[in-house]
């Protein structure tokens, strides 16, 4: 199976997954990912024409709760693990440029 995943592809996947990769990691992960994806290709041996995808273990339909307001997590508890906060807000670095 020739399923080479290039270092550039790995970096692209890393960007999509929001995981920064060093060059060494991109190389190592690239080899491992190629091996594993090559293994996934085994499924191509199977004819699945006309088979309905199985998205869930049990065929359950939507479960709807009654439209009744209930107490939920209060702001203090929700913010208790925040790496940085400003009052009742999660704080992040500036996202929009100065200009």
């Amino acid at each position, binding site marked *: 199976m020739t399923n080479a995943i290039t270092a550039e592809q790995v970096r692209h996947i890393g960007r999509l997954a929001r*995981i920064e990769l060093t060059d060494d990691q991109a190389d190592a992960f690239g080899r491992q*990912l190629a091996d594993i994806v090559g293994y996934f290709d085994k499924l191509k041996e199977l004819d699945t024409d006309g088979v309905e995808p199985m998205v869930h273990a049990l065929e359950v339909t939507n479960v709807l709760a009654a439209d009744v307001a209930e107490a939920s997590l209060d702001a203090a508890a929700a913010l208790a693990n925040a790496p*940085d906060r400003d009052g009742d807000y999660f704080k992040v670095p500036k996202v929009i440029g100065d200009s």
Partner: protein
Amino acid sequence: MNDILNLSALELRDAIASGAVTSSAAVEAYLAAIAAHEQALGAFTQVFADRAREQAARVDADRAAGRPVGVLGGVPLAVKDNMCTAYGRTTCGSKMLANFHAPYTATAVGRLERAGAIVLGKTNLDEFAMGSSTESSALAATRNPWDTHRVPGGSSGGSAAGVAARMCAGALGSDTGGSIRQPAAFCGVVGLKPTYGRVSRLGLVAYGSSLDQIGPMTVDVSDAALLAGVISGHDPKDSTSINAPVPDYLAGLDTPPPGLRIGLPREFYSQALDGEIHAAIDQAVEVYRRAGAKVVDVSLPHSRIDVAADGALSSYAVACYYIVAMSEASSNLARYDGVHYGHRTGRRVEDIIELYSFSRAEGFGDEVKRRIMLGTYTLSSGYYDAYYNKALKVRRLIAGDFARAFGDCDVLLCPVAPTTAFRVGEKTADPLTMYLADIYTISVNLAGLPGLAIPAGVSPAGLPIGMQLIGPAFSEDVLLRAGRLYEKASGVTRLRPKMV
């Protein structure tokens, strides 16, 4: 050994209820066992000694005053550290959540506590439950009490090692592809993976949401029945939990299922299976035959295990499972963004994307990164149909095989893992060989079925061997009764490693 540690959870519950033993004495006995073995095994991420002592004192006071103490009144248990507790930390064995304090307690853990159980501590796991050896925990690797040079299996390795070494009277694990059953087999304990939807997943840190299920890990089948009865049931806050009555698993436990038909999936008895495990399973089949069970040959063609000329194993089910699990993982773990909770990078960042990318690069270990990236790949445009959608179709074929097999039998009997516990470090270099440790367990999760791992003996090298019973959805009562039948007929139960 302390007499208390010889008791099962059920016996300890009865001893506390009758006043023969106090909960405080039980907590002290288990804390002493943890003190004796924790350094060698690394089974726990945290021990709540003070909290446990206070709760035990309360149970003892309640009992003395004649107040009810619950069906697990005063029994010290442990829970895997991917289940949220409103006390202590919920680390998932990850640097990402090293200091995470969950705002609420998982439903399954809360059910234990409402039944009077005492949560003695939280157990180690592969990071985010992604692994089969408990070596990928960011804290430390857990060791097998039968041989500390070997792994306890995973990802619920801390729970398995803790129960095997009698550091707790029982534990909860979680199972996405075998993470309760395989460590149970490696450590010589009982592990039940319930039907998908039987136990609430609320507060279980999500890995593969269509596969994950919490279940008990115990010294014998009766304890598994006891704990399963407590944690099972509908939870309005988990829309995938099933609203169906929970049978009293203990009540009928000693009544063997009438006319029991045992199916042997022929694809599981190939050259991939270690000879000593094959021999142990053959003996178990004989035990059932002598007990009057009918043994039939069945087929699970899409769970077939192929062995290449060079010995490499492959299986449609393993490929299908890892595509589904990794795709779900990549989506589930997107929540770790360094903003709401969890690790945030200390590096200077130019924008929000760098904040995410640096935080995640620092917070996740290699195996978690591999799985997130593979899941990102299989869900990405251009590959979605070739991998993810294809895997969902194969998933239906795998589930269909089970449905057909259960036309001819009540339960399937098969191995849990292809080998006994492997050596620490043996499989860490090659992720694919590690994935194949799950070859006999993953199909069960894909089909959403219950699976029970129970000890089937000890190998000539002195390592436990497990066997697995698989049944149709919501047949936990049948599995437990069939397991209990084997325990009684074979005498193989409550295995004990030399260290305890």
